[in-house]
């Protein structure tokens, strides 16, 4: 079971943030499509006549019972291993965020707010504070909606270069500027004397290797590590600049929006995905964390039959072989989106830039939806936006909870279980599903419950040294 949710990391200031947020919503939908896609493709392994992209429902009736069972079994087995492949990076990201929050006081210090949340929460009355936070959340979510629509419009009118350039700038900002700030704060915390020349060298190397790994080629583990690091950096920025009530409200509203945008027929994400299907293109292959490189395997598995399948399938297929580019592109702001556009350009007008030969070769090959013969080799993909919002929740819990480590642990387990349930629902319904709602809901419920109910109880127990 391959879950792909591509989300762009919201960039910090200015329009980039809204644009990035918009991308993340779009990606969510695309991920679901791709998930559905995956299942369709898998079924196709057993029953070549059945699947078309995006309409697995129709195909379900056609699938032979036994095939479906085999498929489901494959899915389940596939699922357990790949759930773990998602657990590990999500856990790592959260660990990095919590460790930073606990040690570097910069990220818990209040130094102003983003321009997207202009209303302060330092008010005299509780009612005023509630109102301000609601307004903040409303502004943030409208910015996200506007940027999503803007993205859909840009995509519809094929303004690929604009998006491409913007993504490159965003990733540069993230890899150089934010990591520089992070490094500076870590040095301040541990009182390490450091000269600018060494710092410049370190940041330069970190950033350039990051850009190469994420946008081009690099060892898989290194690329995964970079993706986790930039997700953590982004989450830390959110934790720092979002005031408390606003942060919780935004988390809740984003989950609802995610749910609506992916499941409603008129949602911008769905429209984006449908446009991509019509054009036989992949959507944002880069803003994803991918657990395997299936580049070479895909090259070997070309199934001409797949070409006749619905465009989405072939889209996904092109994507699978383009996993390489995916990995290269999997960077917060750029996301394979740019790569995909490059591929599109290459397809239509020949390679303009120095694209890898293999990419062009794959594009020329008949597209198929068969990503991998061996499901075990197919990787799992999760969008970076999911990483970021999970980490924001856990980071906020560790920063501001009175229950401290108990609350953090409870939120962590809740998010992991939510992720597990999401993947399970995906296996059962074989429909597009967003990755945020269940986990964030569980996380929020457990945060407030643990902080207000469990903490006093555990406190009293520890005081008397009773054990339950």
């Amino acid at each position, binding site marked *: 079971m391959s879950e792909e949710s591509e989300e762009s990391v919201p960039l910090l200031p200015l329009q980039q943030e809204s644009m990035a947020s918009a991308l993340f919503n779009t990606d969510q939908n695309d991920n679901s499509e791709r998930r559905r896609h995956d299942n369709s493709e898998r079924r196709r392994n057993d029953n070549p006549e059945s699947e078309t992209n995006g309409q697995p429902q129709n195909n379900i009736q056609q699938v032979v019972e036994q095939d479906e*069972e085999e498929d489901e*079994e494959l899915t389940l087995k596939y699922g*357990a291993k790949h759930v773990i492949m998602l657990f590990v990076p999500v856990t790592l990201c959260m660990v990095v965020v919590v460790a930073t929050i606990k040690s570097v006081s910069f990220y818990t210090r209040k130094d102003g707010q983003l321009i997207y949340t202009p209303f302060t929460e330092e008010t005299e009355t509780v009612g005023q504070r509630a109102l301000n936070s609601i307004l903040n959340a409303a502004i943030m979510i409208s910015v996200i909606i506007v940027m999503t629509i803007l993205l859909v419009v840009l995509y519809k009118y094929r303004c690929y270069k604009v998006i491409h350039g913007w993504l490159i700038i965003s990733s540069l900002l993230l890899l150089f500027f934010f990591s520089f700030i992070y490094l500076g704060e870590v040095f301040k915390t541990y009182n390490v004397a450091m000269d600018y020349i060494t710092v410049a060298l370190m940041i330069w190397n970190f950033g350039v290797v990051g850009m190469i790994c994420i946008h081009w080629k690099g060892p898989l583990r290194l690329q995964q590590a970079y993706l986790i690091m930039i997700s953590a950096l982004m989450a830390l920025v959110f934790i720092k600049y979002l005031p408390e009530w606003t942060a919780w409200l935004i988390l809740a509203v984003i989950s609802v929006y995610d749910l609506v945008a992916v499941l409603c027929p008129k949602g911008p994400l769905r429209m984006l995905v449908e446009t991509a299907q019509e054009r036989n293109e992949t959507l944002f292959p880069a803003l994803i964390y991918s657990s395997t490189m299936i580049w070479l395997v895909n090259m070997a598995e070309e199934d001409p039959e797949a070409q006749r399948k619905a465009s989405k399938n072939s889209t996904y297929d092109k994507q699978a072989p383009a996993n390489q580019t995916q990995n290269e592109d999997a960077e917060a702001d750029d996301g394979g989106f740019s790569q995909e556009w490059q591929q599109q350009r290459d397809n239509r007008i020949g390679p303009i830039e120095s694209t890898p030969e293999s990419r062009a070769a794959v594009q020329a090959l008949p597209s198929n939806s068969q990503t991998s013969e061996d499901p075990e080799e197919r990787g799992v993909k999760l969008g970076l936006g999911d990483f970021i919002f999970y980490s924001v929740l856990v980071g906020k819990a560790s920063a501001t909870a009175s229950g401290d*480590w108990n609350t953090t642990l409870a939120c962590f387990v809740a998010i992991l*279980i939510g992720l597990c349930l999401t993947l399970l629902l995906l296996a059962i319904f074989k429909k597009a599903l967003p990755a945020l709602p269940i986990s964030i809901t569980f996380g929020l419920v457990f945060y407030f419950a643990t902080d207000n109910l469990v903490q006093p109880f555990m406190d009293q127990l*520890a005081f008397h*040294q*009773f*054990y*339950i």
Partner: protein
Amino acid sequence: MTLAVFFGCTFIAFGPALGLFLFTIAHDPLRIIILIAGAFFWLVSLLLSSLIWFIAVKASNPQDEPLQKGLLIFGVMFSVLLQEAFRFLYYKLLRKAIEGLVALSEDGCSPISIQQMAYVAGVGFGLMSGAFSMINLLADALGPGIVGIHGDSQLYFLTSAFMTMVLIFLHTFWGILFFHGCEHRRWWEIMAVVVMHLAVSGSTFCNPLYVGSLVPSYLLMAAAAAWAYLLSGGSAQNLWRFLLCLRSGASPQPRS
């Protein structure tokens, strides 16, 4: 305080559990999922029992010390019962999961047996229970302070660590016993688990008289360990052969 106490208590409390996890659970993704789900179920049971306790406390007079202690004792007992109830619910869920796995498998048998699930579920419950008891203490142990300077016991951290370790083990064995009782419809096994849990929690009421809580808990743990071992197919002969590293030419020592 300081790092020595922190690391010492961490490894006393979680060392064996970490070993169990690394050697028997970490390599199998399905078991990791069952572990985390078990932790989740324990967490939900704790949530509900804290809710009840919270309501009771809010409805009572906060100044009345004996009443508050009585409410806390009631909370502990209720929490124990709720934990066992959720263990039963988890058993039901895992049974359904096994049926699903069997239905979907190629050769008609599940990749994991109910006994293995029982063990992993027990470890999950134990780890979460231990973590919730111990983590805040460990975080405090890193900071400055002197234990027991106001006349309380100086062994607070150490005994907490030992109690946590025994609880993790106990949860593991209770998981095996409980699931076995549910499988074979032996209600007295289930009752025995509940009674043992109540006894262990009850024994902690005489803290800081640690002799009254730690010794019975460890004795109960040894008893539960032997019982679980016998139920899992072990015998004195097996144990003897394992200790002597004998290979009789028949099947090697059973590994979970």
